[in-house]
């Protein structure tokens, strides 16, 4: 299985490659990718440097152009595909059908991967993308249980990549408009969820409050650790009870599932987090490299080493990890 790591910057890209990534993925410095953060991502010069660095060390580079262009953005998004092509990336990660069509016709020889933003959760959906745009690989949304992944993998016409570690989206990606409902930006339109520009922190007599476009997302009592106000991870009131009504702030960690994922024929595991620091990427990539190497050399004897677990827990939201939807009871 291939280890696919995030690269939000050139240092992060190099770190990922140095620590065992088989492939890295990056986006351009605009809304054409789903991790639009100030100061993050690549211009063409940096991207060329990163690609050369990776290729010299035997790693592949994928370019994510996985948001949805509207008519007034069409030329810009199409231009992003052209730029990726001329940079010589190893694959383009796309979600929009119009853009997939463009890439398939104009650059048939550059492999197309379906982004998680393409919301493909069944082999019929994968066949749709395969038949229409000849995708080589698809990234599965983080909403399927392991049994369901098994069902998809059994009939999949394309390679599959699954999320292994990082922030947990609990909604079917590509079909979540919660962020644009509270702010004016969503992953689909702007590559942003709960955008930083809308975040406000405030000390109050009741505690530290986090707000998104003035909406109270959470309030922390003394001794509680505060996290970024991703709107689905706040505490809200439903019929008189206040709780994490949608999801707790935890990270996805699927180390335990590695042998099973390999048996299912999954081609790649993906690390989330282009917004993370190079130091974070180094720890995560190194840990997963060890795990994958152990799996490779002794598949029957694979166990998760306590050291890996504690390293990853230390890098997780709230210090907690979950198997998420892979574990059916989570639902």
């Amino acid at each position, binding site marked *: 299985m291939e280890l696919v790591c995030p690269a939000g910057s050139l240092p992060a890209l190099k770190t990922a490659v140095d620590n065992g990534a088989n492939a890295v993925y990056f986006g351009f410095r605009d809304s054409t990718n789903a991790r639009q953060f100030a100061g993050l991502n690549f211009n063409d010069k940096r991207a060329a440097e990163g690609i050369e660095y990776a290729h010299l060390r035997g790693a592949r580079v994928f370019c994510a152009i996985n948001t*949805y262009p509207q008519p007034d953005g069409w030329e810009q998004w199409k231009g992003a595909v052209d730029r990726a092509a001329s940079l010589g990336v190893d694959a383009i990660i796309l979600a929009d059908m119009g853009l997939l069509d463009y890439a398939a016709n104009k650059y048939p020889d550059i492999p197309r991967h379906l982004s998680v933003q393409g919301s493909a959760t069944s082999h*019929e959906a994968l066949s749709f993308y395969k038949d229409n745009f000849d995708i080589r690989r698809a990234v599965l949304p983080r909403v399927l249980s392991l049994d369901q992944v098994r069902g998809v993998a059994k009939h999949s016409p394309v390679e599959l990549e699954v999320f292994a570690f990082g922030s947990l989206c609990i909604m079917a990606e590509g079909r979540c408009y919660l962020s644009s409902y509270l702010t004016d930006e969503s992953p689909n*339109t702007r590559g942003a969820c709960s955008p930083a520009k809308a975040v406000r922190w405030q000390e109050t007599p009741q505690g530290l409050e986090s707000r998104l*476009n003035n909406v109270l997302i959470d309030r922390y009592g003394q001794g509680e650790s505060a996290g970024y106000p991703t709107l689905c991870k706040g505490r809200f009131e439903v019929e008189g009870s206040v709780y994490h009504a*949608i999801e707790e702030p935890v990270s996805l960690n699927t180390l335990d599932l590695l042998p099973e994922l390999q048996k299912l024929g999954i081609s790649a595991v993906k690390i989330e987090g282009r917004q993370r620091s190079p130091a974070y990427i180094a720890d995560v990539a190194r840990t997963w490299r060890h795990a994958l190497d152990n799996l490779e050399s002794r598949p029957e004897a694979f166990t998760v080493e306590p050291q890996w677990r504690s390293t990853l827990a230390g890098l997780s939201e709230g210090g907690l990890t979950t198997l998420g939807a892979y574990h059916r009871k989570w639902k």
Partner: protein
Amino acid sequence: MMKLSLGPILWFWSKQTVFDFYANAAEWPVDTIYLGEAVCSRRRELKPDDWFDLARDLKACGKDVVLSTQTLIESEADLRRLRRICDQDEFVVEANDQSALQVAIRNNLPFITGPSMNVYNVATIKVLAKQGLKGWNLPVELGKETLAQMIQGLNEEDLDVPAEVFAWGFLPLAWSSRCFTARHYNLPKDNCEFRCIEHPAGMELRSRESQELFRINGVSTLSGSRYDLMRELPDMERMGVSTVRLSPEYQGLEEVVKRFDQVRRGGTPTTDPLQLVEVPPCNGYWYGKPGMDLVG
């Protein structure tokens, strides 16, 4: 004149409630009715044959009937239900997932893309128009500027694919494999006791300052305010929107339909539908603002 449609019922209602609702709707001035379970595979008050019977009855009453498909497809059982819906040639289907596109195209069945299908540009419509696309819904988070550009682009390409706009009701904003209603009751999804049937208008999710943010409805999350584009109907007419969608609610929809009908005929409604039920209205998406905003 623009058409009025009733979207699929997004809530879980008893079989009798559903039958009563459509018995009434047959008499309302709506042109198109979308039928079927678009949210949760566990909701089976109506069996596929019940839906087909209902579809034929409503067709006999002069309504255009479209069969809606499930939005988040997770299992082989979901695919079997989907194939069943697409294994007929009497009705157009509303494809709410790429799985439905694939099956409809394979069966040469005409389809309309629902509001959860990511149709954000003309190039996407061009791909689908070659394969049986008969209409498309504007994704709920998009507004009038994008819509106008889309319609203009379609005209330039000489593509006659009618546009539909979700114009009244709680906006379907997200789908998960997790059931938030079951989570509220501390029940596993696989043994959810079908609690959402007790909440025919969903469950209100508020901030700790009592601001209505969302409505929990099984595996789906809807807007906490009610989208209302009644005053924007003249805009839509000018733009060339073909169909205006109203989303079924448990109470008061007949009155809403009546007023939308008056407005599409150029009239002024006697009372404001915003006052019908005590839910804050919103229209932000239409104006390129946060969806929850109310402009004007």
